[in-house]
């Protein structure tokens, strides 16, 4: 038996199939992944993502330390409640983890991946030497992600009037605190939605009330197809400690200015950027297969670069329930043409597109 979130019994009650996910017993799907996926694109669904790791950072040098720790710059969080997506890099300029950082009324809140929890906490502790900061993991908090076109209305129906008013007006990547509840307009689906970070003991009741208003429970299976349609990276698949953010479509999440800000891995990623310009470092791009078949992680890609044959690899692939054909993220050489995927020994032609397939329920690539 693995670790269980405060909603474990709720998942069983809803008929979930439970799988091990980074040491946690999590719902992979309830009845049908496809139905759950469409529920989020068309209406509204709730995900239990309490397995993710919440880390609160505070202290006199919290800002200064995060400016050193993260490739994006927390100086952009110029108001309480603002959120930022960032990579955390090692000295080689490779990705230790990707995370969201929120500015709180006091200090900052980071949400990192569950599979990288121990590694991240060790890394943060080590990098905090010489800084006056406190780093506090929050296993007492659960996270419910409510996403889909109806999500904000549904959540607001359940909140006290004043809080509902605030939440209904939240901009994207903005959050608000109300006592020990934290509600953010962030997510991993490409739809409007909220992430509610709340005390463990409040989670089952909120879950029940959401389900009672018609919000559908969504498993990690649909979470993966939704994030891939939205072109969002998954740590451990699309990037890891051997991959530069430059080769993982994350260059735009690195704050290069101000030049004097020394963040971990800066020198290395500056070199990676140069290497990529010279065609020496691959890029992460989207590919689509418009005929029958499903692209899968690990499949080999054959391309042409300046008339020479070269190779790439699929880092995440699935059937897109919204588009009704297969989509994937793939790492291929810069300037690739004539892209084909080795599917069970047969090379099938695929199209290279921007790594963003579906937003707000609609196809977004050409």
């Amino acid at each position, binding site marked *: 038996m693995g670790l269980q979130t405060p909603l474990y019994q709720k998942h069983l009650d809803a008929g979930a199939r439970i799988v091990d996910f980074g040491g946690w017993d999590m719902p992979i799907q309830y009845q*049908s*992944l*496809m139905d759950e996926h469409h529920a989020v694109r068309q209406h509204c669904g709730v995900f239990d993502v309490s397995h993710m790791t919440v880390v609160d950072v505070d202290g006199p040098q919290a800002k200064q330390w995060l400016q050193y720790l993260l490739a994006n710059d927390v100086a952009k969080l110029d108001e309480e409640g603002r959120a930022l997506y960032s990579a955390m890099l090692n000295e080689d300029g490779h990705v230790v983890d990707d995370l969201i950082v929120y500015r709180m009324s006091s200090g900052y809140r980071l949400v990192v991946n569950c599979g990288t929890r121990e590694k991240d906490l060790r890394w943060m502790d080590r990098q905090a030497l010489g800084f006056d900061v406190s780093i506090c993991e929050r296993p007492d908090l659960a996270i419910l992600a409510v996403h889909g076109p109806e999500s904000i209305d549904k959540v607001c129906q359940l909140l006290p009037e004043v809080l509902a008013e605030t939440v209904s007006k939240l901009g994207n990547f903005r959050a608000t605190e109300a006592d020990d509840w934290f509600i953010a307009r962030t997510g991993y689906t490409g739809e409007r939605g909220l992430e509610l970070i709340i005390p463990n003991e409040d989670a089952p009741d909120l879950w029940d009330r959401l389900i009672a208003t018609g919000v559908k429970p969504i498993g990690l*299976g649909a979470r993966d197809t939704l994030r891939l349609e939205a072109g969002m990276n998954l740590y451990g698949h699309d990037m890891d400690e051997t991959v530069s953010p430059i080769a993982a479509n994350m260059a735009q999440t690195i704050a290069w200015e101000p030049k004097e800000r020394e963040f971990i891995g800066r020198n290395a990623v500056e070199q990676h950027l140069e290497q990529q310009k010279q065609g020496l470092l691959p890029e992460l791009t989207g590919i689509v297969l418009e005929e*029958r*078949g*499903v692209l899968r992680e690990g499949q080999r890609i054959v391309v042409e670069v300046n008339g020479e044959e070269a190779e790439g690899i699929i880092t995440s692939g699935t*059937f897109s*329930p919204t588009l009704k054909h297969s989509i994937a993220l793939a790492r291929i050489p810069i300037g690739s043409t004539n892209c084909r995927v080795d599917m069970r020994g047969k090379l099938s032609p695929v199209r290279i597109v921007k790594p963003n397939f579906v937003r707000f329920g609609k196809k977004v690539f050409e």
Partner: protein
Amino acid sequence: MSSFPEDLKYAATHEWVRLEEDGTVTVGISDHAQELLGDIVFIELPQEGANVDAKQEISVVESVKAASDIYAPISGEIIAINEDLIDAPEVVNSSPYTDGWFCRILPNDEAELEELLDANGYAAICE
């Protein structure tokens, strides 16, 4: 819970077989198999007219989550395929033992059926 009809024979690789009155057999994948695969999105059907050996790969099923090979449970000639599955592969999820059949095989040797599992034997390996 998965269903395991008593009148069928099963391969350990999750195919089912029904002996028809005319001596041919109908082949599909079990309810347990479709549950494991989840939503099925493409099926590469067996080749009509092909002569196949038992345990030979005859078809590929792609679900959102995974690709899975389907094997001939018995040797013989493939005399019919269920072309409806090309456009409606999800029928295998909803009706694995009826409308979701894959193909019919004219067996070389009906005695090979004895090597397959009965419903109880198959249910036991699915636990």
